């Protein structure tokens, strides 16, 4: 039987959709079925990780052009 501490350490792999060895995957799932604390940990960790994801907006055309100008100029210095 897995310990909760092991589940806490491997929950990241589940969050990341990593392919785990069959036996380990089964053991994690079996533990999660009977342990509500670990289920909560996994669910909340997933929510936290989703919250962090951000795609920054692209630069404006004016800012891009000024930057490209500077890059090309400085390279030819």
């Amino acid at each position, binding site marked *: 039987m897995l310990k*909760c501490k092991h589940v806490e350490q491997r929950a990241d792999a589940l969050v*990341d959709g990593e392919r785990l060895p069959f036996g380990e995957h089964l053991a994690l799932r079996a533990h999660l079925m009977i342990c509500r604390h670990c289920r909560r*940990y996994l669910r909340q960790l997933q929510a936290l990780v989703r*919250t*962090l994801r951000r795609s920054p907006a692209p630069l404006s055309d004016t800012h891009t052009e000024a930057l*490209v100008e500077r*890059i090309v100029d400085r390279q030819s210095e």
Partner: protein
Amino acid sequence: MANADLETPEFIERLRAGDRAAFALVVKHYHPRLLGAARTLLQPADAEEAVQDGWIAAHRALPKFEGRSALLTWLTRIVINQARMQLRKGGREVQFDPTEEGATDALAHRFNANGHWQEPPRAWALSGPDALLTRDELQHCLESHITAMPDNQRLALQLRDIQGLDFDDICNIMDVSASNVRVLLHRARARLFQMVDRFQETGEC
């Protein structure tokens, strides 16, 4: 233009051939992401300089870019190297290998000697008007905890959870093994989990 379009062989060929409009598109879409990566190691003004130096180095090296990794991965690696060089100039060295840092799992104290929860996670309000993770104070608190992390944990978190890069790309950028990236990411997430759990109980950052 979607980021995927910047990674096609046809587009890379235009870049290699020195097409200025193609280069401008890459700058437009990738500059903010590269800046995000550089800011994990440097103050904002220094990060801006590191990214600009990175662009200059990349622009020079583009004709020789072989496409063995994605363009974004290659650029991020160049920028991170620039950032490390800047740190070195200021007498600082960043160690990406987690075995060197002596940090531990921020949740370790919440398990008993048998490895079971002695202080289980609290139930977070995840939906409804009180949804915890959408609250501004918590967002500020997350930001400040991310800023306070060791550099290597913050960079792994930035590349994986904030920017959504693949593990292989992160290993390539940081030049550490996949298991080390996982250790760093686990430590970073455990810190944030502990912080949010505490916030849920006390409302304090």
